[in-house]
């Protein structure tokens, strides 16, 4: 008849009270269980979607803050440039798997034609009169990050060597379709034209004021088709991607130095042709050299985004910020976020209610058993063991109540979340008014987020619920147990 056996007898011999306590714990347990189920499910969605969104991040001006600046302040603001050293410093952080920074330039050609796409709706065809249809994308990371990340595959030839990147060798990796369109093969050369335009505001006409050829050797061919094949044929997002596809097909990867040279040439010639602009530049002490890099970092894991952000932010110049691919989650996760918040509030309220109600029930039962507790103390039982006995009684009932509510609460959560998501569906906006970062964007939509939502009875939910449930009951029992500590057996028994 030790205190544990007394505890078990306390449950079986006082069936009515045990059932009342069981009912209270079961009802409140359902609330806690439901809330945890929803939290787990939304957490899983966040994890899954963030994994699908990838680990890419970049550093750019904080456009949200800039947009909210007063106009006069905004006009005076001159953003500091990021600089290669800072980009490299960030790239050396342990969270970064690999990184690149690139300059971009658009060019035309008289010898090759842009790829227009196959079987495409006319609406999505490229403008045939576009004089600069080719995008030169500067590369500093020789293996090409887009290939490493599976955005495209190398179908022929090779990627850059470090020497080619460093020396700015005139070589390019172009799309397989563009090569086929122009009968180009690895080892062939082709010529682009870097035209310098002057714009006449009065006549609204553009004139070519200077021009030079850029001859590039094809060293590799890439195929971006693997990306389109992955996406859902019928989805709206796929249409969006198809629209972008011709641009990617006409993108050429070249060493950054090539882009820098051509950009500088373009600026120099522009200034030669525009005295007014040249005078203004001179007045402001700026020369014609122009380097503006867009860095892109790929981190080891999606979980690294936040620590990466925390470490990078202090290094950045004023009004710069970290933008990550996972930021898109906040835009597409509307119903999930509101459900997660609701579940969080329900959980807090349910835990507080459980502590209060169970605490009161236990206290009432203890007062009712004052004499019994006094007897144990008069027989010399340690108060800790009397407390242990009560804890066993409550916790055994709690385990039964929590186990029952584990299943019913989970079931309830599934029903409730379906209702919430359906009712929230109409409120979602597909439009995004912020800055668009193609490197960071994915085709995932709110619908994908909703589709990946599933209330499961998995191990983390079971452990989480038992943990929170039993801890809550423990706290609600410990508070009334102070009553036992203060019990005076003489006053009760004599």
């Amino acid at each position, binding site marked *: 008849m030790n205190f544990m056996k007394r505890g078990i*007898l*306390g449950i079986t011999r006082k069936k009515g009270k045990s059932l009342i306590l069981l009912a209270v714990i079961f009802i409140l347990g359902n609330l806690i269980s439901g809330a945890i189920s929803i939290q787990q499910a939304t957490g899983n969605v966040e994890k899954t979607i963030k994994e699908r969104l990838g680990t890419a991040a970049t550093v750019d001006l904080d456009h949200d803050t800039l947009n909210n600046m007063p106009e006069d302040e905004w006009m005076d603001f001159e953003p500091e440039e990021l600089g290669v050293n800072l980009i490299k410093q960030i790239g050396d952080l342990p969270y970064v798997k690999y990184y690149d920074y690139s300059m971009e330039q658009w060019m035309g050609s008289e010898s090759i034609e842009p790829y227009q796409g196959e079987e495409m709706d006319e609406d999505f065809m490229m403008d045939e009169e576009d004089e600069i249809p080719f995008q030169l994308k500067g590369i500093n990371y020789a293996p090409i990050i887009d290939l490493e990340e599976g955005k495209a595959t190398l179908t022929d030839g090779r990627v850059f060597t470090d020497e080619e990147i460093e020396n700015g060798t005139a070589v390019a990796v172009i799309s397989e379709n563009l090569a086929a369109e122009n009968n180009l093969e690895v080892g062939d050369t082709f010529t682009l034209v870097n035209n310098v335009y002057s714009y006449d505001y009065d006549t609204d006409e553009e004139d070519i004021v200077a021009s030079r050829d850029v001859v590039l050797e094809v060293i590799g061919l890439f195929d971006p088709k693997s990306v389109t094949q992955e996406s859902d044929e019928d989805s709206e997002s796929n249409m969006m991607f198809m629209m972008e596809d011709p641009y990617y097909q006409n993108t050429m990867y070249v060493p950054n130095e090539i882009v820098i040279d051509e950009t500088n040439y373009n600026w120099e010639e522009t200034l030669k042709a525009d005295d007014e602009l040249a005078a203004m530049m001179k007045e402001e002490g700026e020369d014609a050299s122009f380097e503006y890099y867009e860095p892109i970092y790929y981190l080891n894991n999606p979980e690294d985004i936040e620590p990466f952000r925390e470490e990078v932010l202090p290094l950045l110049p004023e009004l710069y910020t970290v933008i990550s691919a996972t930021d898109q989650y906040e835009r597409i996760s509307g119903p999930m976020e509101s459900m997660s918040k609701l579940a969080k509030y329900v959980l807090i309220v349910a835990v507080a209610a459980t502590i209060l109600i169970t605490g009161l029930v236990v206290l009432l039962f203890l007062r009712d058993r004052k004499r019994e507790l006094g*007897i*144990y103390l*008069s*027989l010399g039982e340690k108060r800790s063991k009397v407390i242990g006995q009560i804890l066993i009684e409550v916790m055994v009932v709690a385990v039964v109540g929590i186990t029952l509510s584990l299943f019913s609460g989970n079931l309830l959560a599934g029903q409730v979340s379906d209702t919430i998501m359906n009712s929230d569906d109409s409120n979602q906006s597909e439009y995004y008014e912020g800055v668009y970062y193609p490197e960071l964007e994915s085709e995932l939509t709110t619908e994908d987020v909703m589709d990946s939502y599933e209330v499961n009875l998995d191990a983390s939910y079971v452990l989480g619920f038992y943990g929170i449930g039993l801890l809550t009951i423990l706290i609600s029992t410990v508070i009334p147990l102070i009553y036992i500590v203060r019990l005076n057996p003489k006053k009760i*028994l004599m």
Partner: protein
Amino acid sequence: MILEAKDLNYYYQDGEQRRYILKDTSISFEKGKFYTILGQSGSGKTTLLSLLSALDSPHSGEILFNDEDIKKIGYEKYRRNNIGIIFQSYNLIPTFTAVENVLVPMTITENEIPSDKETVAYNLLDYIGIVKNKADRLVNKLSGGEQQRVAIARALATNVELILADEPTGNLDEEMEQEIIDIFKRLAHEHGKCVIVVTHSNEIAVQSDQAFRLKKGVLSSYE
């Protein structure tokens, strides 16, 4: 001397004034004797018993059990291992059977108890006059006299030498009262226990080996 109280003082603070329940009370008890402490309501006899049973502590003075201060032994430990207490209102656990009530102190004490505790409990109840079929009943299904017998068996369960009883026959009829007194006598004289009974009954006092009278907190021999 199994138990000795020296210069016990116990009082209530009433404003500036102290109202003494026990004043410089000294008393000693031997093994193998049946003692009674006689007194009217409010005489301080229950307070004295609560001090001797370590359910309360005196404001001054000391209580020695086998020459050791019970404060040093530890009140809880003293109650657990050295004494058995019997109350006027039995104070049994109503949701337990008679034998389960007797088993409770056996698992609390640190004294050596034979491993087959249940047999010991049944034997004790049988010795006190509770047969097996009654021993398996919930105690609130037993009569007052039977419940008090169970309480006595519980007090003996830890194999202690000192039994303290507060008005043990207060709720019983005369016939049952005599049966309980006979049990106490047997425990003292046949088993060498020291039995101390607090009572207001002269009939019980005259049957004890030694009786004390407590009046207004002052103890004297009962003639």
